[in-house]
């Protein structure tokens, strides 16, 4: 029994401390998300100038671009942690890669739903085969496939290894997909600000730009919160598994 206790300590070193820290971090991030979201709402709906032709419908633009930013960032994080995992083989890197990919997929869905709403009022059509849109769609499919690899049966390190490989390949593919599609379809190209399609030909009004940047910042904090929360969920799952296993060992004795 004493042996077991020792092993338990060895297996979960300093657990209470880290969980306390992560709990307070989660609280801080949550508060940060709420505040920054409220601020960004203020900037979007009150501070930013209303668009002359599209009126209120244009407001969705801020969420659309921010979600796209968040999704791309999430996939980039998955890419980085996939490489880290293959080098270091630490489970935590894999957890980060996975949670980040999940968040990325969710926000890609948001991008793909807000996009048509925007397109409807801006270009009078639900969907255009435009490079950024198709790239986002392909990106969505790639990371759905990534999550399907995670759903495979088998031990975690095999799944982690294979999905890390796919995470790297998938992300490396994205720029090539974008260029290929850009070459292919060069019809709609309202590149103004580099960040998103905007109706005004020459640029973006400064109040809108401020609102956009604030929203992007808010979404970045939201991402950090979601990532932290998701990782702590995964950790909890892992811990439950560990305790189950320990219990089973006890019973077998």
């Amino acid at each position, binding site marked *: 029994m004493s042996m077991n206790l020792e092993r338990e300590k060895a297996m979960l070193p300093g657990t209470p401390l880290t969980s306390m820290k992560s709990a307070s971090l989660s609280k801080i991030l949550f508060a940060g998300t709420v505040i920054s979201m409220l601020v960004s709402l203020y900037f979007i709906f009150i501070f930013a100038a209303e668009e002359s032709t599209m009126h209120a419908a244009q407001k969705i633009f801020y969420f659309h671009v921010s979600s796209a930013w968040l999704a791309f960032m999430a996939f980039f994080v998955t890419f980085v942690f996939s490489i880290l995992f293959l080098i270091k083989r630490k489970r935590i890197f894999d957890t980060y890669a996975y949670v980040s990919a999940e968040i990325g997929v969710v926000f890609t869905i948001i991008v793909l739903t807000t996009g048509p709403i925007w397109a409807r009022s801006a270009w009078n059509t639900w969907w255009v085969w435009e490079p950024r849109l198709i790239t986002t769609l392909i990106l969505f499919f790639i990371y759905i496939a990534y999550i399907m690899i995670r759903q495979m049966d088998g*031990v*975690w390190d095999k799944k982690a290894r294979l999905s890390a490989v796919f995470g790297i390949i998938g992300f490396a593919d994205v720029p090539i997909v974008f260029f290929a599609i850009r070459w292919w379809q060069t019809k709609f190209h309202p590149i103004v600000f580099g960040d998103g399609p905007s109706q005004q030909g020459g640029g973006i009004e400064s109040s809108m730009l401020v609102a956009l940047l604030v929203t992007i910042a808010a979404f970045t904090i939201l991402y950090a919160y979601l990532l932290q929360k998701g990782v702590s969920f995964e950790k909890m799952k892992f811990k439950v*598994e560990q305790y*189950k296993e320990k219990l089973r060992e006890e019973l077998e004795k």
Partner: protein
Amino acid sequence: MIEIKKLTKQADNKLILRGVDLSIKKGETVAILGPNGAGKSTLLKVLATLIKPSSGLIKINGLDLKKNHLEIKKLLGYLPHSSLLYDHYSPLENLVFFGNIYGVDDVEQRAIKLVKEVGLSFFLNEPVKNFSRGMIQRIAIARAIIHDPEILLLDEPHTGLDQGAISILNNVILSMKEKGATTLMVTHDFKQAAEICDRIIIVKNGKIVDDFKIENRNLGFVSEKYELQVEGVS
């Protein structure tokens, strides 16, 4: 020949091997006994480079398993439960293919000789898929020794074989032993273990619980030791 230090293997949360220390000298024939799920096959697979250990050190012939896996793979002959043979290929084609991969010289001659040795020269050009379990196992052992390995890793080689096939298999193992090969054999068959092995290792719960030499094919001694360790009879 084989040095294993503090070998552990963890799959998900389950520890399959919990610190195995083992040292096997050249030319020894070792039987690994133990109940189901004790980690015997895992140990063998780790040695065969089919499973990566979670921690621990393995040296074969003084070479580190992690770094020199290509050199080590040339020394190993591995025979698992499944035959590792291509169904629609004949024994000759199978052996020639694997011999070529290992870079054996005069591979065809050697393949024919081996097939003769396991007593199947009549079926040299028949596709393997029509063979019975015993015949497949005999070709499988020929496949495992096509490159004259210095270390033989056998996973329950005697299961499902009739008396004749068992004696052929034992002869092959013994002739390899005369050439100086080291053999590790996971088995449940105490009789065969006592027959051809000169050292017995008992594995339980991922640990080596007993390790002793036997002489004079003393079957009773092996069973006694096994019962003592595994069934807890004292």
